[in-house]
């Protein structure tokens, strides 16, 4: 086939492209992934029994805000890396800032606590399961976000995979917040972070394989 013929073929009967096609696909993916993740959480782990009291504590919202800021920054990174020629600009800073903020809060909490109580602030009672459960809850979101990204045009595949993985990890952590009994900033700044980074790492490894187009 000559190139002119290909051009004619592609242009003939071309269908209009819906506006915001990229954003819409991610919206569908996140909705479905989050719904599946929430069902997994309710079926496997259950809501924390004292959720009604917990929502009155400022630390509950600090934790939720920390995770939500990371989810928002991951979403921005994912959207930008889905489009050829789009730069990340300030998005990496938006990813790092919430982490630094929670570490500052954690530092203050640790400094103000008697040394004997400090391990308790860091390890809580669930540090061994927390990162794995976050990674588990992010699994359906991971599949959904990768499905969405496969319909786009990422040109930096390891980076795009990392962003997609982080998006899954952060949204999974958001769901996990409704189960998790821990509220200490040192705990959140350590084990939540590890939990969210696990899908990010898998995304970096799988991106070059799964996202080619």
């Amino acid at each position, binding site marked *: 086939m000559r190139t002119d013929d290909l051009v004619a073929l*592609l*242009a*003939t*009967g071309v269908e*209009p492209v819906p506006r915001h096609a990229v954003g819409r696909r991610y919206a569908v993916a996140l909705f479905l992934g989050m719904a599946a993740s929430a069902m997994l959480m309710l079926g496997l782990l259950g809501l924390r029994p004292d959720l009604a009291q917990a929502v009155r504590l400022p630390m509950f919202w600090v934790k939720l805000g920390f995770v939500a800021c990371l989810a928002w920054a991951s979403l921005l990174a994912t959207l930008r890396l889905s489009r*050829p020629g789009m730069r990340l600009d300030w998005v990496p800073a938006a990813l790092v800032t919430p982490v630094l903020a929670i570490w500052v809060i954690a530092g203050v909490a640790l400094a103000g606590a008697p040394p004997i109580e400090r391990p308790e602030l860091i390890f809580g009672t669930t540090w061994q399961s927390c990162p794995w459960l976050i990674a588990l809850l992010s699994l359906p979101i991971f599949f959904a976000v990768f499905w969405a990204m496969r319909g786009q045009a990422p*040109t930096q595949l390891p980076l795009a995979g990392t962003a997609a993985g982080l998006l899954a990890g952060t949204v999974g952590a958001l769901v996990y917040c409704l189960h998790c009994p821990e509220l200490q900033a040192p705990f959140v700044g350590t084990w939540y972070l590890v939990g969210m980074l696990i899908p990010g790492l898998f995304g970096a490894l799988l991106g070059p394989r799964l996202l080619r187009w």
Partner: protein
Amino acid sequence: MTEQGRSSPNEERLRHWLLRGLDGDAAAYHAFLKEVTGHLRAYFRRRLAQLPDEVEDLVQETLLAIHNQRHTYDIDLPLTAWVYAIAKYKLVDLLRRRAAKQALTDPLDGLAENASELLSAADSDAADAHRDLSKLLAQLPDRQRLPIIHTKLRGLTVAETARATGMSESAVKVGVHRGLKALAASIRDDT
């Protein structure tokens, strides 16, 4: 990737055509693809001086990629940056596939230029493509091949194609869309 490309009349005209093409204006879209073809050819000729036989195949592969991913163009983004990023991705992908095959080294040297280079030259002198897309097209399953042949090669409307094939109109649209993506995938596996 410089912003300066945005102000050039060349870029503005191309962008205008693409935006109308995204709204379904086939003539504007045709003009866009035709002009981009010349720029891609010139760009790949410079980059693939050692591999002149690959140029026309890569032009076709990139055109198909631009078409299949046209929804990822953000109207706030300079057009050149978008086209250039796709062209570079396809070029690097080709060199990687070849390198994997032949264990070539340092194929990516000299890629550190910028997007404004893309519109700096055009080349309308098409060499023959070595890979025949019509052969790959013929290998697609009927539900993708028939909609492409009717709407894209014979110029029938979606409704006429639906009547001719007994498929629903949405199945025809999906068939065209998935068929062109499958075509791009078969090019990747083919190389």
